[in-house]
């Protein structure tokens, strides 16, 4: 059984020529003081794909998201989104952070509507989109609740809904389920797959959970220890219509094993480096 189709190109460019490149990084490096955090790194994100990034702790995964989103600037290299250079966060990119970023002073509905109000969208359209997003994320009954009254998973769904209503074409997720328990993460993964299919957006997910990456992704970029680069791009070969039940499939085990075989070595390197640090 063919388990994992590996990209021949470690930069991560998808082999199919017909696919449109949505965002790309070329020769990107990021340095903090004397610490090389990232790169040089190349990546092409194909329009509409679900791409996950896994790597050892401190390898620069979140730095990669920062640079791709425009929240951070690379020290070298170029970042483009829809063909234009990224300088600041461009219109069309939505970001969900690992930490709870819901606004505690706003109700769930007002949190979700926040970006739309700021953008001057008319009230009827805001109500329509917020209703849809709340329904989509299972938050309709909590529209008037405040974040402090919700569980961690629900707050994260509020943040996802707040991003969703702005209709981003590229959704960047920085370990959004990192603080949640395993069952909730699997179910949130299903929500995320549904969101991805319905919106047609390109998704880049940063995660430390190999099973999450294996279940959700079309492709998985495995990063080296710091400074992070892609050492392999794993193509999962899952159909677009999928959900968390694929964890029972034999292929799922092979994919996670493949990811771990790379990550074990890189994680040991990272720990070794940490051990020698002053």
């Amino acid at each position, binding site marked *: 059984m063919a388990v994992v189709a590996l990209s021949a190109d470690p930069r991560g460019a998808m082999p199919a020529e017909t696919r449109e490149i949505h965002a790309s990084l070329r020769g990107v490096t990021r340095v903090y003081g004397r610490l090389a955090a990232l790169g040089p790194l190349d990546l092409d994100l194909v329009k509409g794909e679900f791409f996950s990034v896994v790597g050892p702790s401190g390898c620069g995964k979140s730095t990669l998201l920062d640079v791709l*989103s425009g929240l951070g600037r690379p020290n070298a290299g170029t970042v483009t989104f829809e063909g234009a250079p990224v300088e600041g*966060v461009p219109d069309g990119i*939505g970001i969900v952070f690992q*930490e709870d*970023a819901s606004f505690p002073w706003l109700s769930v509905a007002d949190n979700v509507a926040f970006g739309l109000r700021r953008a001057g969208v008319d009230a009827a359209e805001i109500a329509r989109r917020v209703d849809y997003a709340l329904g989509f994320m299972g938050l309709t009954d909590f529209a008037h609740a*405040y974040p402090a*009254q919700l569980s961690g998973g629900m707050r994260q769904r509020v943040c996802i809904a707040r991003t969703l209503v702005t209709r981003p074409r590229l959704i960047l997720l920085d370990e959004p389920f990192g603080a949640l328990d395993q069952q909730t993460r699997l*179910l949130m993964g299903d929500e995320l797959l549904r969101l991805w299919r319905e919106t047609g957006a390109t998704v880049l997910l940063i995660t430390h959970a190999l099973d999450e990456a294996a279940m959700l992704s079309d492709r998985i970029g495995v990063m080296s220890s710091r400074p992070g680069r892609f050492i392999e791009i794993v193509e999962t070969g899952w159909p677009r219509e999928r959900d968390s039940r694929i964890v029972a499939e034999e292929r799922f085990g092979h994919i996670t094993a493949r990811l771990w075989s790379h990550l074990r070595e890189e994680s040991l390197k990272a720990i070794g480096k940490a051990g020698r640090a002053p």
Partner: protein
Amino acid sequence: MSGSAALPATGPRGPWLLDGLVTVVVLLGLWQALHAYAGEAAIASPLAAFRHLSGLVATAGFWSHAGATLSAFAGALAISALLGIGLGLVLGLRRFAGEVAEPILAGLYSIPKVTLYPVILLVFGLGIGAKVAFGVIHGVIPITLFTLTAVKGINPVLIRTARAMRLGQAETIRTILAPAVLPEIVTGLRVGFSLTLLGVLVGEMFASQRGLGFLIVNGISLHNVQQTTAVILMLVIVAVAANGVLLWLDRRFIHRAA
């Protein structure tokens, strides 16, 4: 789908009212017991104090004194709030300055402020200026410290979210930073309210011919125990009512942010 039922936004009203009623009854009981123990020469009974107060509030002289206290207190609270919030914002945003200033402010606040009153009298003279200044030195530091702590404690992910949403600086301050720090500022104002009132009243008690603080000391001097007790009762009612309103605001905001 994960989730939990939303918690009730506020507790039921009944127990709140009952708790308040029981507290008032217990306090009145204690007051009556103290009156029975210490006698009429030390403290008036609750009934006598309420009677005297109802007569007092019907006189124009009382309202002249109350007006003097109110104007000094309003001025002191306004200065404390503006100075405290302004200073707290600046020190909170400038991390190094904040780390230097915080222990200095806490140290200054531990000074028994009443020992500074002679200096304040010499600087501001006998009048409303000294009362306002004495109120400000009581209220400004707590408001500054609460504001500073609020700004320092802003969750960095909220700032990143503002950037991710492409908010400008002014919009970030207005829509993210201000509401994020508001609960702690309201708490600071509540604490500052009580301390500023304390400062103004102490100022009136020591060196003033006008104000409710003066009426208290005047009652003691003339051995008019009913006047002293009635004015104290009036101040307690006003302070508790105002504090209740601020506490309600405080809980409303903190409830959301908890």
